[in-house]
């Protein structure tokens, strides 16, 4: 066990959200080919409802204050993985100084994926843009160079290959939210599908 590991004791029976099973490996889910984007071309853009853009290059992004969250993740396909360790930048840091009154965010990715969530869920130390997983660079199949991490919602909200966030005053559903999945996706309330 590595020093400082904050996960649950192995002997404890972990509490899982309803309908989930525990997995020790890390399944790879993908709705398309893996985008090839290197640090030299990568950028992250926050666009406000007024059209203002805030951009970070890879060098600027990785120079921001870093968090190392250890979190449980829950996929809507019913697997959960406990005590995953990440490194990245809190959305509180990225949104600090962004002039916005928006209530909703549409996260978009290299490769065309998108997902929506309320601004409130991006704030308060509950969401990150992460670029390292389990002590190494985030592998491309898991969303590298960088992905969103919002572990209190189903993992489809944690967009891989994240490119930016559009802030808006209206809720705009994303890739899976327009195809039958729940708009919010709280695993503890089992909000899998529209209408749940």
């Amino acid at each position, binding site marked *: 066990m590595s020093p400082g590991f904050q996960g649950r004791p192995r002997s404890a029976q972990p509490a899982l959200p309803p309908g989930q099973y525990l997995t020790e490996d890390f399944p790879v*889910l993908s709705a398309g*080919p*893996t985008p090839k984007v290197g640090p030299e071309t990568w950028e992250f853009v926050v666009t406000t409802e007024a059209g203002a853009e805030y951009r970070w290059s890879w060098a600027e992004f990785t120079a921001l204050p870093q968090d190392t969250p250890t979190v449980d993740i829950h996929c809507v396909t019913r697997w959960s993985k406990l005590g995953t360790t990440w490194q990245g930048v809190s959305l509180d840091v990225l949104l600090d100084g962004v002039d916005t009154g928006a209530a909703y965010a549409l996260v978009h990715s290299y490769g065309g994926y998108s997902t929506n969530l309320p601004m409130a869920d991006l704030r308060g130390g509950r969401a990150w843009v992460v670029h390292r997983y389990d002590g190494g660079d985030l592998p491309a*199949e898991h969303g590298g160079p960088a992905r969103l991490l919002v572990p209190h919602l189903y993992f489809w909200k944690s967009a891989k290959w994240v490119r930016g966030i559009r802030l808006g005053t209206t809720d705009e559903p994303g890739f899976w939210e327009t*195809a039958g999945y729940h708009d919010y996706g709280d695993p503890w309330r089992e909000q899998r599908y529209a209408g749940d």
Partner: protein
Amino acid sequence: MTEMSYLDGNMLDGPLRELFAVDLSAATGRCEACGTTGPMAGLHVYPHAPGLVARCPACQGVMLRLVRTPQRAWLDLRGATYLGIPLPPDQPYPRPL
């Protein structure tokens, strides 16, 4: 780097048979994004996802998404401008005048 594997569009036969009386594997579709026309069986289907995502083999644009929930199927064809479905030469509607 691991490239995500995809299956060919023939794997859509079973999931779509639950919805349609006709066999769509022989249908042709036109990609809304790039205009390429080809058989549904030639699409690239990514099954390791919360739903089935079928992409144009030419431009990787999403042509079809199918999500099966416990109560219903959600079929999104906005990425396909048409499906051409082979049918027998019978033409009941409209009848010849």
